[in-house]
């Protein structure tokens, strides 16, 4: 047997998991605002959120590299507060992935909230529920399919990230060397067996996750018409 380092796999799962959590916290308010605002800035924000879909990852990665750098608008303040740099670190990768995968979480949630509409919210308010109460006990359960889609897409998209990671994170084992880059490395030096193992692992894992989520989705008792 060849020597296979599973570090990148573990790191990738960590990165995708944390990114999805951050994205749910950041993306939910954005999606809610987009679904219910009548502000004329709505379309502008919508376009900005969708940018990572059309931009080449290297372009996004390039700007993120500058932003996360010691003199950048994100990296600079971060360094002042924590004393550490952001570029070429795991935290930097999480921030970069958050931007990169943002539309894949915001768009399904936005759609789900829009489908939901104001009607159930008004019904909940009339029954004495505050806005926050309504969000957690009516809106979120009714938008559960939107959440599932957002989690799957956000997770899967972060798993497959390559260009942005390469630009922002580099290739530091244990810190920023994620699966896709490990596979690339193996192929570069013609270690096809290792590349195969990691690729098959990722393939099967992704398939199982999707299968689980879709079958769960089918069983959900909620049918929002």
């Amino acid at each position: 047997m060849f020597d296979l380092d599973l570090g990148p796999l573990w790191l990738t799962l960590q990165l995708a998991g944390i990114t999805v959590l951050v994205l749910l916290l950041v993306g939910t308010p954005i999606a809610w605002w987009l679904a219910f605002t009548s502000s004329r800035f709505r379309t502008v924000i919508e376009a900005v959120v969708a940018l990572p879909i059309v931009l080449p990852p290297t372009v996004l990665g390039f700007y993120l590299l500058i932003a996360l750098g010691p003199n950048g608008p994100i990296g600079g303040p971060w360094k002042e507060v924590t004393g550490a740099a952001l570029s070429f670190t795991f935290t930097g990768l999480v921030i970069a992935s958050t931007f990169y995968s943002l539309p894949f979480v915001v768009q399904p949630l936005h759609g789900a909230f829009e489908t939901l509409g104001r009607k159930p919210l008004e019904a909940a308010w009339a029954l004495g529920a505050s806005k926050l109460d309504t969000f957690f006990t009516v809106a979120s359960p009714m938008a559960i399919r939107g959440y599932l889609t957002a989690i799957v897409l956000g997770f899967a998209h972060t798993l497959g990230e390559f260009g942005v990671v390469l630009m922002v994170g580099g290739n530091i084992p244990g810190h920023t060397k994620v699966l896709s880059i490990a596979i690339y490395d193996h192929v570069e030096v013609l270690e096809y067996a290792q590349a195969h193992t990691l690729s098959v692992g990722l393939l099967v894992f992704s398939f199982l996750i999707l299968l689980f989520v879709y079958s769960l989705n089918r069983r959900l008792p909620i049918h929002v018409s």
Partner: protein
Amino acid sequence: MSQLIANFNVTFPSFHLKVNATLPAQGITAVFGPSGCGKTTLLRCLAGLERSPTGTMILENEVWQDETQGIFLPLSRRPVGYVFQEPRLFPHLNIRSNLLYGWKRTPAEARKISLDHVVQILDLEPLLHRYPSRLSGGEQQRIAIGRALLTSPRLLLMDEPLSSLDMQRKQEILPFIQRLDTEFHIPVIYVTHVLHEVMQLAQTLLLLKGGTVTGIGPLEKVFSQLNLRQLIPESHLGAVIDTHVAEHDKEYGLTKLQFAGGQLSVPHQDRSIGEFVRVQILAKDVSIVSSQPAFQSSVLNVLEATIVEIGPVDSGQSFVDIKLDMGVPLLATITRKSLTTLKLHPGQRVYAQIKTVALSHEALD
């Protein structure tokens, strides 16, 4: 008497609502008018879902909105129940949890209505453990009503709650709504564009047209307004009279209904003596004779009345509306020619021949 004071003045891109109304905070008040006249908007103003920049809303000395003092309670803090056109049940909760959603959020000391009572009145027992998507529209709307009641509201707002249901379901739910007042003593504001529902349910009527109030007051008073012709379909033009069953005439199969000005004979009604019956006498079914008919008439109900007011005489029109007083107001539509021939004038004693008496529980439309 406890009152509901509502003053709203709101402008929308295509519509303006201006209402200054004082309504009794008891019984059922119907808000009636054609589609787009602002009925739903008025209800949403009462609920606090729309905010009139110069609005006032006071229920029994409790101020919910007074913009001059910067007071505006959001819907979640107003003790109102709101039954929408569609049931709007929460699909992820079973019926029991739907019913208790508002109850749980009502302070314990304000809870006056129990789950058991609502389940019994609305006949919900067999549905409690099912989910909304499995129920018929009528069942869902009953639950929506129960869910609103369980917040023990001080005011119940209903926005055409029967509009999405077929005739049979409507007849199934109407009695429940009728019983709300007697069972729970909650004032109801009931929006509808169906006069039949107004007749069956309301004690007070607010007529809306183009965002303004064109008639307000007790049902029988509004229904004897001479300008009614401009406000409601002609097929419904006529006085509404509240009566009680006085006696049954078994020999001829008739029932006699007692009202403030006398008795009306109608075909036999399967009702007990003393029971409340609301009738409508359409203006076109009333003819006027200026003296006691010398000939026998086949018309059963001939009542003495005084002419109160004669409607505008328009030379382009064949008909004139006349307002009579026979202890209660009565409207009659006669031809312009008869008005001249009989030389009718206000204050004159006449006889009103009433051809047909419509009972409000019969389908009028």
